[in-house]
């Protein structure tokens, strides 16, 4: 009996979400009197996973897996789960993990719940809490199968260092035909993605035009944040759709969400409900977003944002 986690990496380096799923799995393992085995693909620094609670690492090194493919990755994790007789599998809610998890669930006849935000409230029956209705509510869901797959929402559990060590084993699964071949990847490698971000800086129509996004990007850079936008902004083509946050765009579960010039339509608020601290900057004191926000500034973005950048730079310099 063990818990398997799929730990995502990029260019050999673990993503923060990978360390978070290990931390989460460790908390379940402690309750179950079990242990955590991490499955890693083409990553280095494998020992670091021990610090977050993995006692074993199954290391797959295979050039055929350099590009993510849901079917082959799911198959590799399935084989690892069978070898370890895993009864719980934890993945993140990154685009890739959400791509492979349903295939893994079919392969293992496992119940799968995504967007989970807390450690299980009960192990028998196995019950987890997750967001539903696009973050307007939560559901408590029981998984009744022998093998359970949990998709943990990013930034929901946090990192917990346990100071342990992990043993490392090579693992060589047999890989199926991928069926889907990657032709090209178009990705800004120097930018924080919305899914990974602890802080998101988002702009709306109040910014008046795409030429004014420089200050949004500068604020994001100071905070190490991802940039995002409201639906009208992506519809107008000021920003790419991949930055659109909301019900038909991306959900955001950051620690800090700063909304600038966004009035706060219900569909937008649904997309950011899972963010922990919300700051709103808007000229309109009646904007609905102020009702959903923790902190607000009623003021002109073109005056407030440069000031905020300057103050944050000073804060960073003082706290470096």
């Amino acid at each position, binding site marked *: 009996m063990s818990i398997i986690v799929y730990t995502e990496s990029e260019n050999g380096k673990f993503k923060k979400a990978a360390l978070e799923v290990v931390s989460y799995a460790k908390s379940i393992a402690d309750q179950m009197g079990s242990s955590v085995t991490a499955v890693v693909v083409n990553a280095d620094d494998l020992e670091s996973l021990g610090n977050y609670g993995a006692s074993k690492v199954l290391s797959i090194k295979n050039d055929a897996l350099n590009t993510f493919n*849901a*079917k082959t990755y799911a198959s590799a994790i399935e084989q690892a789960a069978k070898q370890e007789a895993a009864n719980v599998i934890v993945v993140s809610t*990154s*685009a*890739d993990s*959400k*791509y492979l998890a*349903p*295939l893994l*669930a*079919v392969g293992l*006849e*496992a119940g*799968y*719940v995504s967007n989970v935000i807390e450690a299980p409230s009960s192990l028998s029956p196995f019950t987890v809490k997750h967001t539903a*209705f*696009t973050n307007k*509510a939560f*559901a*408590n*869901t*029981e*998984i*009744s199968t022998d093998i359970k797959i949990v998709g943990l929402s990013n930034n929901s559990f946090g990192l917990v260092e346990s100071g342990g060590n992990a043993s490392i084993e090579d693992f060589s699964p047999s890989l199926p035909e991928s*069926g*889907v*071949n*990657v*032709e*090209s*990847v*178009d*990705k*800004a490698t120097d930018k924080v*993605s919305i899914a*990974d971000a602890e802080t998101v800086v988002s702009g709306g129509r109040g910014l008046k035009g795409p030429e004014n996004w420089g200050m949004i990007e500068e604020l994001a850079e100071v905070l190490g944040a991802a940039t995002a936008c409201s639906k009208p902004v992506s519809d107008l083509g000021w920003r790419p*759709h*991949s930055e659109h946050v909301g*019900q*038909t*765009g991306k*959900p955001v579960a950051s620690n*800090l969400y700063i909304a600038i010039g966004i009035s706060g339509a219900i*569909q937008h608020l*649904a997309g950011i*409900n899972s963010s922990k*601290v919300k*700051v709103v900057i808007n000229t309109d004191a009646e904007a609905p977003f*102020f009702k959903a*926000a923790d*902190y*607000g*500034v*009623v003021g*002109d973005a073109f005056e*407030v944002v440069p*000031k*905020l950048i300057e*103050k944050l730079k000073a*804060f960073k310099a003082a706290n470096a």
Partner: protein
Amino acid sequence: MKILVCISHVPDTTSKINFTEGDTKFDINGVQFVINPNDEFGLTRAMWFKEKQGASVDVVNVGGVETEPTLRKALAIGADAAIRVNTQATDGFSVAKELAKVVSEGGYDLVIAGRESIDYNGGMVPGMLAGLTNSNFVANCIGLEVDGTNAKAVREIDGGKETVSTALPLVIGGQKGLVEESDLRIPNMRGIMMARKKPLTVLEPAETGVKTKAISFEKPAPKGAVKLVDADNIDELVSLLHNEAKVI
């Protein structure tokens, strides 16, 4: 090309969410139901294939009789035929199994489902359906071209996009980007009249393999009032974010 579009019947995007029966059931009182927005992008792309490349388009929903107006709307938009699998959609896996049976028996080349439904947001049905029918699968699909039995798709990834090539039979999880929002269609009177004459087949469910069950729901705790900071005192905002919220 034979296309199947999976349609979820979901609360309108502006719906206020409430629960009844001791927070165990979604309260449908006063809620308007619509075609799941992610499915609507897929349906519109299917219409494009029908009109430009001569495909046939069926739509399917797993749900009770109350979902039929949503299927009729899809017919009014231009789908040729509708199928309703007569069971309540309880969990993603059982829905995927019902759909897999429809796909296998119908011999579809391309199955378009929404990335996720905006009610339960599981985002698992398209992938499970692909797994169960042994089809190729592209998630978060924002572009799709089909040439014969080959397909080229673009999918959104964290921080960018990826172009892939694959072959039919194919299942995609589609979303905004698959077509422009301005291309979405509103049924016209002729479409509505024609939809009445189009076949809507009701199939009895085959599988009962429910693996997960939502036992209760909660709404987020009410929020305290916003703390307003004077626009001339941004130092205070930085201080609050550091000392009180502890996010910087």
